[in-house]
Structure formats: C-alpha cells, structure tokens
C-alpha cells in the first residue's frame, strides 16, 4: 500500500462531482477518462427517509498492484518511497492489460494520446507539499489525504461526541 490514505467523510459528501471535474482539469484530460469517480447508489427510502450513498472511487494504490504486475512494458510503476502507483507514459504502449487486470477499474483510457491514464494522487502536487486536486477543492471538505496514521479520526470523534454526556 502507499503510505497515504484518502478518506472520504461520507456524512459531508453531497455527491456533487467536483472531485471528478477538478481532476480532469488538473490533468488536462479529454471527455472520457475519469481518474476518480463518484458512484451514486440510491436514493432509496430507508425507514421513511430518503438516503443515498456517494462512493468515491479513485485508485487504491495497492501494495501488490495488479496493474503493475500485469504491465508488460514497465510503464505502470510503484514509487518506492511512498507507494504511489503511476503510469510512465513514455513506456505505455496502450495495450490496456492494466485495465483488464485492475479489479476496481482504476486505469482509464485517454483516447487523445492512445495511452492509459490513472490516478497518481497528483504526486507532483504532493511533492510540492500540496494535497491531491480532488481533496483541495472538494466542495464540502469531505476528502482528507494524509499519511495513513495521520488522517483525522473523524468518525471516531463524531461518534464519541454523539455518545458523550457532560454529566
């Protein structure tokens, strides 16, 4: 796994797709490839209240990445210092094996260049001390990106606040 953890606070997410749009803007992508995607489930009624789930689907940057193992040219790589999985596009021949290999559909096809593109946690931004584009501009600040053990324990704290009493 990468050293990083991208946490989506689903309580705050409003399913607006800002993350998808800014990602495409930042990577200058044409219509088609989506390096991250909000997948909406519902709305449906649960005990008289309408509820929906917005699942944020970037790349998971796996420890033993299927895409890296499958890539025949060495284009799909894992950065040793922090585990970010990325495509070296100079080496990509557009064979799409990584797209077949990934169980979660993370690698995407860029028809303009005839190569694979993929979420790299905006590693140029990370290297510059910034956050991935999706995290920075998320409308409701529902996305959090840190070294895995530094991500704020939002759910734990929220639960504790609800349960606690000052008696």
């Amino acid at each position, binding site marked *: 796994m990468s050293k990083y953890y991208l946490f989506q606070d689903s*309580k*705050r997410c*409003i*399913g*607006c*797709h*800002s993350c*998808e*749009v*800014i990602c*495409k*803007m*930042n990577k200058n992508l*044409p*219509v*088609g490839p989506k390096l991250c995607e909000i997948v909406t489930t*519902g*709305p449906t*009624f649960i005990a*008289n*209240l*309408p*509820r*929906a789930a917005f699942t944020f689907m970037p790349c998971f940057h796996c420890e033993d990445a299927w895409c890296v193992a499958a890539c025949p040219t060495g284009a799909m790589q894992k950065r040793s210092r922090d585990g970010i999985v990325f495509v070296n596009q100079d080496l990509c021949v557009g064979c799409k094996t990584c797209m077949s290999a990934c169980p979660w559909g993370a690698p995407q096809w860029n028809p303009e260049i005839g190569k694979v593109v993929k979420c790299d946690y905006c590693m140029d931004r990370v290297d510059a001390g910034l956050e991935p584009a999706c995290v*920075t*501009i*998320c*409308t*409701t*600040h529902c996305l959090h990106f840190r070294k895995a053990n530094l991500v704020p324990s939002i759910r734990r704290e*929220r639960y504790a606040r609800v349960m606690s009493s000052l008696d």
Partner: protein
Amino acid sequence: MQKEVYSLCFMCSVRCPIRVIVENDDVKWIEGNPHVPGMEGSLCPRGAAGIALLKDHERLQSPMIRIGPRGSGKWKKVSWDEALGFVAEKLKDIIAQYGGHSVVLGERTQISTHVSKTFMRAIGSPNHFTHDAVCKGSVNTACRSLFGYTDAQMSMDYKNTKHIIMYGRNLFESIEVKPVNNLMDAIEKGAKLTYIDPRVSLTAIKAHRYLMIRPGTDLALNYALINIILKENLYDRGYTDRWVLGFSDLQSFVQPYTPEWAEAETGIPAAEIVALAREVSRDKPSVIFHFGYRGANHTDEIYMRRSIMILNTLMGSVEAKGGFFVKKGPGEVGGKPARKLTEQKFPKIEVPRFDQLGTSYLPLPDPSHGVGQILPYAILDENPYPLRALIAYRFDPLMSIPDFNLVKKAMDKLELIVAIEINLSDTAWYSDVILPEPIYLERLDCVRQVNGLKPQMFLRQQAVGPRYDSRPGPIILKQIGERIGIGEYFPYDSIEELVCWQLEETGFSIEDFKAKGFVSYTDKQIFWDRKDGLKFKTPSGKIEFTSSLLKDEGFDSFPTYESRTSPPTDQFRLITGRCALHTHISTQNNPYLNEIVPENVLWINTKRAEGIGVKNGRMVEVSSPQGSGKIGAFVTDLIHPEAVFMLHGFGHQAKLATRSYKKGLHDGLLMKNISDMIGGSPALHHTFVTVKPA
C-alpha cells in the same frame, strides 16, 4: 514564472471568491480563495470546470453580424468597429423614430449592472430588467412587505443554526459553497435539517425529516404550523410584542387552518405537522425557515414566501444568531460603499416601463429588477407602447422566460436583437448582432460590494489575457454610447479607471485587493440589539404581518387560502429544478459538465407510470397547450404522484453549441407564462402536462 491572482468565479451568479494560479498567461489551477472562511480551497463542480470554459473553442470568438434569416446560423465575422457601428446606427434610427423607451435591456444581475442601467437611463429608457424577477420577484416583494428590506438585503446565519427548514431549497445541489459548508458545520454540531419537496432531491437525502408534500401546498402547511405555534404558545412572545404589527390579525386568520385541515390539503399527517412545530420552536430563535432562492412556483407565491418569514418572526429568528439577519453595509461602521455610475444625473423619463411596473397592473414588484416575463406580452401587444430593440446581456429570454413559442414569436417582431454574451446561447443564436465578452478569468470587473455581518468589497481581477476578440460589457456599452451621443455618461477608458473611480471615496485602493482579493470594513460581526435596535424599513418600523405596502395597493395581507387544484387524472403538474453540474441555461455546453449531466430526464412516479404504460429509460412525449417535446423517462418512487419533474436548462437550439444542441427537453417549451401579479414571480409550477410513451 507562476503568479497568483485573487478573483471571483462567474460560472454561476454566486460569484465565489477564487484563487487562480497563472503561468505564461495560462491558467494552471483554480481553487476557492483560501483566505475566505467557508471557501478554504473549495469549488463547486461548475467552478471546477472554469478552465474548460476558458479553453472552449465553441464559445463566442469575435463580433458577428447575422447574414441569413434569424436562427439560420449564418453569420459574418466583423471588426468591433463594424459591429458597434451597426448597433449604433440601428439604435439611433429606432430611438429617433420610436423614442429611447422602445429599447429594452435584460440581463442576469452582475457586478457591472450599474453600467447597463446607466446606458438605459442615458437613452431615456425605463426598460432595464434583470433575471431576478423571473427567479425570485415574489420573495423580494414578500420581504419588503414584512421588513421593508428585499430578500437580497437579508441573509441567514447557517453556521449557528439549530434547525433549518427548506421548502424545495435544494442547497446541496444548487450549491453556494459557503452556505453549504456553514450548514454542514452546523449539522456536525447537531443542527436538524427538515426538507419539504414533492421530489427527493440530493438535499432530501441529508435531511433529518423529509416531507413529500403534495405539489404546491406549502402555504397550507405553513398556515397549519402557524396555527399550532400560536395555539400552543410556541412563539417568542417578547419578540413579537416588541416588533410585530398585526399579530392579532394573524391569530384570527389562521384559526381555521388546523393541522387536520392541512393534512387533507398537503398529504402530510397532522401529527407530523404538530411535531415539527413543537420541535422547531424548542430551538428558537436559532432557527431558519428558509425563504428560498428561486421563489417562482405559483400565482399566490408572495403569500407562501410571506408565511415563511412570518414563521421566522414567530420564532424571533430575524436578527438572531443562527437565524436570519439584515445585511449590514459599510455605513454601519462609518464607511462608504463603492460608487456606481447610476449616481449621475439623467434625463427625466416620463413614460411607464414596458412591464407597467409601478402602475395598477403591477404595482409592487421591485423596479430595480423589473418583471422580465412580461416582455413577450409587451412586445406582441405593443402595450404600453411598441418595443423595437432588445439588448440581451448575459441573459437568454428564449430559455429563461416561460413559454418558448410565445417568446420566440415576440422576438420575431423586434427590429434589433443584440446579444452581449460569452456562449452561443439560444438567444445569441437568434440575435442579429453578437458582441462577445471575455469570461471571468480574462477580465477585470467592477467592484463587488458584499454587505453582510461584516461588510466587505471583492474584486474580480484579471488572471489571463482574452483568448478571443472580446470586450467587457462596460466597454461595449460605453463604445455604443459614444456612437449614439451619450458618451459623457461613461467617464472611463478602461475597467481599471472605472474601478478606481468607484473606489475613490471608500478609503481603499485597487492595490488593496491584490493580497487576498477582498477588503473588509470591519473585523467584527454586526448584530443589532434585538430589544431596541432593529431597523426595519417598513412605515411602522415594525415587522408588518398586516402590511401597509400591500394595503396601500388594495391587496389583502391574509387572503383566504385557495386549495391547490390537483391535475386531472390523465395529467401531471410540471415542476422544475436544478442539479449541481449546471447553472440554469448557461453551462450545458461545457465539455466537463456536459460529460457528467448531458441531458435531462422526466421524473415520473412509478404507479402513475404503470397506469399510462411509461417504462423507465424509454422516451415519452410531454405536452401542454404551450408545446410538446420528447424526453427520456425516469420512473421512480422519489416523486409525488401528482408531479413530473425535469431539470431546467436543456433542449438547446443553438446548433454550433454542439454538445448541448437538442439534448433533452426545454421546460419552458411546456410552461405557460403567467405570474404572481402581486409579488412579481412567474408561476413556473402552474402548468399541467400529459405524458405518453413516444
């Protein structure tokens, strides 16, 4: 070399503060202004698609004059000199023959609106209108009838609210970034959200209570809430005793409107209504009954919006932490606002407005916005006089005024249609001359005065040079003005000069905006004293439940509730709304936004759909007496059986805006053009439609 530019977004009319990173005259990055609480980097999806607009080769690239029939798409690219000369000659002829008042200018309210108002006054025309009435004229009038302030002069303290009640105010999809974040923070702290809508929007899915109300009966619900609040003494007695005029009139009026009565009208169980009234009142005064943004559904809209603000008053929430407040201007702290060109002296205008606003026909709507949806009638009936020319400034009457066919017929009667635009809108497509503006990233704009708990000024600063042969509106209008003999009203040669002139008496300079994009007159929130310091601008100085504004024009403050007619068994009430990915009618051709929401669909209740053989995902034909069209069906339990819903802003006709051309169906094609003649809003939810498999 990278530089940062602080500016204001204009992908929608909220104008969120942004920070733009520029390198070699190219925009590398846009984010919410990190110095503004509630923004802190955030952008909504429309804001995130700003660079796609900047790069879009389908936006307007140069001045053009039409050479084929209207709407044929045959254009001649011309120089600015030729385009402006053409418009000036036409205007001069029209003004000479029919008078300045035969010219109308309609625009989406924007930072430079004072320039267009100046242009119109200088030519002797009272006929400036904004898009506002089409959206929320009745909310404006309702607020003035109670408080003496317009809706735009009031706002709400989302961050500290304990309970917010929204009537179709789909905040989490229409998205104003700061309010969304402030409300999210309040919910984190335990605030409750009650959402009332015949349709499950994405705001409904975040609600603690959702009421699928029978469409158009919100007023009945409110009268029942008021009934219970008064009966059970759930209101803020000290506040109403001090500040309300006409309390006893309200008391006797709501007697018959019991929760049981409202249950029959709204479909919401009486017990639920009582529970809501009790629960909300426990959190007073930190509660917000949201008066809405768009408030344009029915012909009695003003009373619905008044009932909301009466509820707030009963909760004592007007000028309360976590409730509503009156926006404070720089005058509150001894400061001066930016000047506007409209301060100048203009020739006196004797003729009435085209919408007859201020006469017995439409006495009460706000003349600073006018009532735009009257335009097609004024043109066709030549009442009160013939109109010959329309300047459509970032406003698209064909798509924004209900009854497309009626509007089109009216436009056919005009001698001159000029579009000042950035996109190939449907009205630009149908115009005679197109004058392109640079987009927000490519221009400096006038000063934006932001009143609120802390009065501020913001500046839209230019990030990059214009990509195409465009000019900002204040320059375009000045240059037309010079050609028709009113040049003296535009005392500037550049937007920068205009901004410096605006700032002259404020104590701030244009340089002060460089560091963060805004300046503040104070760093403290200003709340007035609730006991003695509330400055309502009504004749009585109080909150007028019994309104002198209404009374003086012969209108009742509390007319008997008229039951909302259900559609005939084979018909539906058409309702309309928005999604997070699009701004009204203006973003459907943006490549990134179009990719996610390319067209609209017709939401239809599962049981009703079964009854008429409509299948999910198949095409249906929707018809009204005004028009008909085809659209895909979305069969769902998420909508009330009496209603069908579609997103506004689709079904564009401008062929060269290829991504949005003929995608989906335009709701205005089906809607009839009728209005709340007291408040001023059109009644956009007042049309019944039939639906059948296509």
